[in-house]
């Protein structure tokens, strides 16, 4: 056994922690209203709003904490916050 504890940790390993469980409100993206400006992606503090192949955006609900910045900042009001479990 190595006597040295791994004082260093691996990059990006917080991905093991699925923060989607924190969410009480869930952002729902309405692609019909979307202008593909990408502001929702830029201002997501989790970095989990992703651009789809068709140019629209969707959050990764495994990690989205439901802060609502994307909904607040969307210039087209194309993201609405929906209470979880409804």
């Amino acid at each position, binding site marked *: 056994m190595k006597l040295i504890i791994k004082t260093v940790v691996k990059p990006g390993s917080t991905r093991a922690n699925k923060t989607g469980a924190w969410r009480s409100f869930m952002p729902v993206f309405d692609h019909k209203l979307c202008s593909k400006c990408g502001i929702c992606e830029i*201002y997501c*503090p989790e*970095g989990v709003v992703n651009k789809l192949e068709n140019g629209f955006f969707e959050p*990764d609900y495994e990690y989205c904490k439901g*802060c609502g*910045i994307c909904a607040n900042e969307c210039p087209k009001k194309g993201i609405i916050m929906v209470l979880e479990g409804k």
Partner: protein
Amino acid sequence: MSLLKPGHRGCAGCCDALAGKFVLDAVGEDCIVVSPTGCLEVFTTPYPESAWGVPWIHSLFENAAAVASGVEAALKAMGKMNNTKIIAIGGDGATMDIGLQAISGAFERGHDFTYICVDNEAYMNTGIQRSSGTPMYASTTTSPAGKASFGNPLNKKNMPAIIAAHGSPYVATASVAYAPDMIRKVKKAAAIKGPTYVHVHAPCCTGWKFEGSKTIEVGRLAVETALWPLYEMEKGEVTGVRKIKNRKPVEEYLKAQGRFKHLFTMEGGAEEIKKIQATADWNVKHFGLE
């Protein structure tokens, strides 16, 4: 995909996480990040996990600039400097209070690194205590508003001016609410040789008492009211400012936050708000914001 990975324990709507993400967006993979103690450090690295996709080190609260200068010296000595950017990212307490001496030393010695102050205007990690970055009349847990007090009685320390006085080739202010502007400035700071500095205004929903969804909105109001002027300084001279169209009165910024609530409920609050408006007016005049 951001180099600051998800799964971190930042609050929903966290300004520090946004700042960290923008910094990594600006500098890319070829960097080494040094963090002093603070929210960003704690919530990104709960052992044995790390949200950082780049090499990262945390040592202590007050020594990030010294640690960064040691990293730089080591890379230089071992011939590994190449194009690697060394970036320190500290909060207002770690930068303007306890870490000031180490920062002064590192800037005076002229190390090739960039220091980013993510200023959320109080010691948020320990529970919203006042720092020298706390603005006048903000209520914090150690400068609370009360029957005999409007909260923090002192003005915010002018940290960019202190760094500029060290002869830094590039000093800029930025805001998490203006991502493209912030990313451009961090990129520029990192590209310039020598010690450079970007002071980022970062509204903290938990500490300033507003909904997490409003982080960007509140940050924008600080700029639009001229309470947080966005400017760049090269070799001590202001070389660029972001002009404000249709400046808003400071009340719009203040009333969006619980930390200033008492100014609207206490007798005499309106008179005190005038002092804050005077700060904004001074910024407009001094930096030529209009």
